[in-house]
């Protein structure tokens, strides 16, 4: 199942995503949390801490530099961009932080 959570910044979508992810993981599901926001904060709400959240993003940035996206394989994606969070939720930051589109 794929679920997208959207909403105006500050409305609480990241908190909502995090509780949904953790709850479904606790019910026995294999959950992947994708942070697709160009200002990624999901790690904090999931409970991995702000340092790890920052590390994940800079890892993403480092891999981005000069590199085209070819990750079609899920495991590759998670191993390149991801981290293990509480309740077995796997977190990956998949946004581009420097996208210049208006929004």
């Amino acid at each position, binding site marked *: 199942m794929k679920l997208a959570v959207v909403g*105006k*910044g*500050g409305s609480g979508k990241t908190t909502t995503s995090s509780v949904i992810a953790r709850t479904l993981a606790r019910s026995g599901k294999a959950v992947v949390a994708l942070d697709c926001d160009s*200002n990624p904060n999901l790690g904090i709400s999931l409970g991995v801490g*702000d340092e790890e959240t920052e590390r994940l*993003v800079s890892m993403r940035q480092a891999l981005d530099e000069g590199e085209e996206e070819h990750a079609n394989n899920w495991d590759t994606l998670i191993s390149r961009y991801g981290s293990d969070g509480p309740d077995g939720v796997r977190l990956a930051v998949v946004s581009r932080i420097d996208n*210049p589109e*208006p929004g």
Partner: protein
Amino acid sequence: MRLAFVGKGGAGKSAISGTFARVLARQGDKVLAIDSDPLPGLAFSLGLAIDHTPPIPDDAVVERKEGEEGPRWRLNPDVDPFEAVERWSVEAPDGVRFLQFGKILGDPKNLWRSQMAFRFVINQLPAGRWNVVGDLPGGTRQAFTGWGTWANTIVIVVEPTAKSLLSGRRLARMADLDPENPKRILAVASKVREEGDVEMIAKGTGLEVVASVPWDEELAEAERRQLAPIDFAPGSPAVLAVASLVERLSEEKVS
């Protein structure tokens, strides 16, 4: 002054920057307020209903011709940035001029030329005529990817939450990456509730906190009613805090 207000979504940028623009204008300064968010926000905080503002016309932007050099798109040479602002901005209370993106009513794809024109006009506006107060959308997408080039000072609005602090640090780092366009980077603490919040924000961002805007129920109410905080609650702690910020920055002659 050319200040761009940035920060994580929901921090209070529109309310703070809109109030800032009105207070600055009341001092007698010429103020141009700009909003580059595809969704409405600053207009209400300035005291305007968004229906009044048509988008910049598509033909303000022209495409490079066959064989011509340079970027694919540029401002129509017939368009003078000063005149563009005069023509396409609207007047808000206290004489503030207001220029915003075309707001997305239909397919966002239809507005990209207008939005590009907006960016060109703002970035090519020579200094001196207006103080510019800009409200950039929440997050990092626009902040330092060409949408804030016009600014000399970046004001990062930060709430006392871990996520907002992280966003603030991120924005501060991004601001520092452009050595050709050095900017002063300041922080404003927003929705302050507790002793120690300001210090937490200063420590957590490594920035100078130049104002502390308290959590203010009246500001929230103004927002719910789509009214300018300065009109709805002129004496509220939050509005007064922004007025002090205007005073402080005016005295410093921040550019």
